[in-house]
């Protein structure tokens, strides 16, 4: 970890970075914001960890917990909403056996997330599966994709 953090530090100095870009860099490398990484930067930059925490929790792009190895991002923007994205999301949660507010399957394989809009509104409803965009999503198509993911995870 130390090495990666040093590397991030170097890049951020070169690119005139700031708190947000440091956190983006950490998120990109680790997939979430590990507490240790924040403490490390806090010491090195002499910026209180609480400032990092404040920025981290303000922006939806940052995650404080590790996420699944596969990320399913369902758009719930307006265009997708009127075309039934809510139905897709609850079906996906059911298919993945996610209870209450959980967003990641027990085995840590699949995370189901929401996003406000992916900018592909004309293909609504839209679901992003491991960064690949799937437009005009239907219940059957989504279930099939999730089954494939689950199978691959086994």
């Amino acid at each position, binding site marked *: 970890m130390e090495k990666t953090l040093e590397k991030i530090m170097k890049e951020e100095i070169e690119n005139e970075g*700031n*708190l*947000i*870009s440091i*956190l*983006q860099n950490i998120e990109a490398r680790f997939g979430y914001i590990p507490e240790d990484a924040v403490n490390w930067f806090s010491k090195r930059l002499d910026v209180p960890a609480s400032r990092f925490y*404040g*920025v981290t929790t*303000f*922006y*939806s*792009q*940052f995650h404080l917990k590790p996420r699944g190895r596969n990320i399913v991002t369902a758009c*719930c*923007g*307006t*265009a*997708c*909403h*009127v*075309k039934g994205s809510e*139905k897709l999301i*609850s*079906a996906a949660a*059911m*298919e993945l056996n996610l209870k209450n507010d959980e967003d990641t399957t027990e085995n840590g394989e699949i995370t189901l997330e929401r*996003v*406000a*809009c*992916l*900018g*592909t*509104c*004309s*293909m*609504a409803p*839209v679901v992003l599966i491991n960064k690949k*965009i*799937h*437009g005009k999503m239907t*219940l059957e198509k989504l279930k099939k994709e999730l089954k494939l993911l689950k199978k691959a995870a086994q």
Partner: protein
Amino acid sequence: MSSVKIMVCMGPGGIASGGAEVISAFESELRQANVSADIHKGCSLHKVGCFGLCSKDVLVDLIIDGAKTTYQSVKPEMVRRIVSEHIIGNLPVAEWTADENYHNFYKKQVKVVLSDCGRIDYENIDSYISEGGYKAAEKVFAGMTPEAVTAEIKNSGLRGRGGAGFPTGVKWEACRKTAAGQKYIICNADEGDPGAFMDRAVIEGNPHAVIEGMLIGSYAIGASRGYVYIRAEYPLAVERLKYAIKDAHERGFLGSNIFGSKLKFDIQLKLGAGAFVCGEETALIASIEGQRGMPRPKPPYPVFQGLWGKPTVINNVETLANIPYIIKKGSAWYSSYGTEKSKGTKVFALTGKVKNTGLIEVPMGITLREIIYDIGGGIEGGKALKAVQTGGPSGGCIPANMVDINVDYESLARVGSIVGSGGMIVLDEDNCMVNMAQYFLQFTQSESCGKCVPCRIGTKRLLEILSRITKGKGRDGDIELLEKLSRDIKSASLCGLGQTAPNPVLSTIKYFRNEYEAHLKGKCPAAVCKELLTYYILEEFCKGCGACLRACPSKAITGEKKKLHKIDPAVCVKCGACFDVCKFKAVKKE
């Protein structure tokens, strides 16, 4: 020996429909057929930005010796025939070419900002230059004073396309007149309005127009540095813009001594991190400075005190992308489109329940009817139009009976909506208006930055009341309470987010009060609100096929093959899977 140009849409819709696969199919088919050997170097394959009609993607333009044929809904497996019959055999594959609907889609549109989008190769700066790109910047740097530039933009009547509609020339002039050693120009590419993708399509389809617009702006106000604040949810736009900035640098359009002058200008990208409020200009500035994106009271306006306390112009992507075209063709030409107070054209993202979904550019003042029926091709599936939502979470709903309204800043404001950034979502009889209001409040409530009380707590209370109404637990007087609370939040909030957040509530109450009242009586007329629904199976239609039984995720359905099936209301989670899957319309929801 003819020249063949193949243009494949790699806009938001094109990619989602498999544009990349279509391109590889062309590559391999052209190689196999040895086309480049047969017709020499005359065959080129280009990736271009959004064509507009995303619902017919992947769209492909085939231009042979200047004559254009458009293919719609192209799949990789169709490419072989297009290559052999059309490119080699010179006979278009008629059954796949664009139909009348496609041509109607464009008839009433006027393309200014989008005039090069879908026609030029976004990865190739020469493609932009060959269409007159950077000519406007050259004209400005070579022979116009900054005063003349701002005057030209003022005369064009261009108003900010980011939502507020403030006259761009006036903003530039104010910044130009503010004396300071350092000034900034910022392009607002946060595009937070969910359900809109105009800015994404412009950046991805024609990134150099945005750069050229910023360059001209920098000259007009005297800024040597620019930033593009772009949302991280648009990785492709970020990539294409980065690439374009690098190219512009290499050609000397950015950097020092631009067009032989002593002026320098550089553009840096700043990635958003997922916060709607960061589209608000003072919050955006805080975010570029690396802080929590909290707005501050205005005045002082950013043109006087902006980024790091320096005078700063913030403009929307579409506003900036208009600039080169206005300079090139003149303010008189631009202001010949539109109405008296709303000049020029506006890009809208037409989505929802219309047949033709996509990106459109229309002259201001066109009627909503023309947009929905002539361009949009009418409502999907023969359903009835209920309303059109414009302006996203800050906007309102225009009911079907007002469809003859002109679409411009003043007319929309008069009926309680706004032009906004350009989202236009068509709703049909199956959409519940109370649910829509609740949806938007959910969004604004969770995106409220929490700095001011009316917005932080007010939106929360609004959402609570709306939620109980949609759950059938509404109380007498709730509608009036919503109205009062809405007015208070509007007048007391710090920034535009709170000041406009109640609009979706107010406009749905204004035009669809009966739907609210029905909910208070325990009915959702559009059969959307789950808690107010029951699902059951009609005996006379059920064939006992078992499709619903297999689709039901909660095992609420029982029944033997070829016999009547039944839904147990105690187990049913009201997901609607049975309703969607039944071919005989035997599942009913009420």
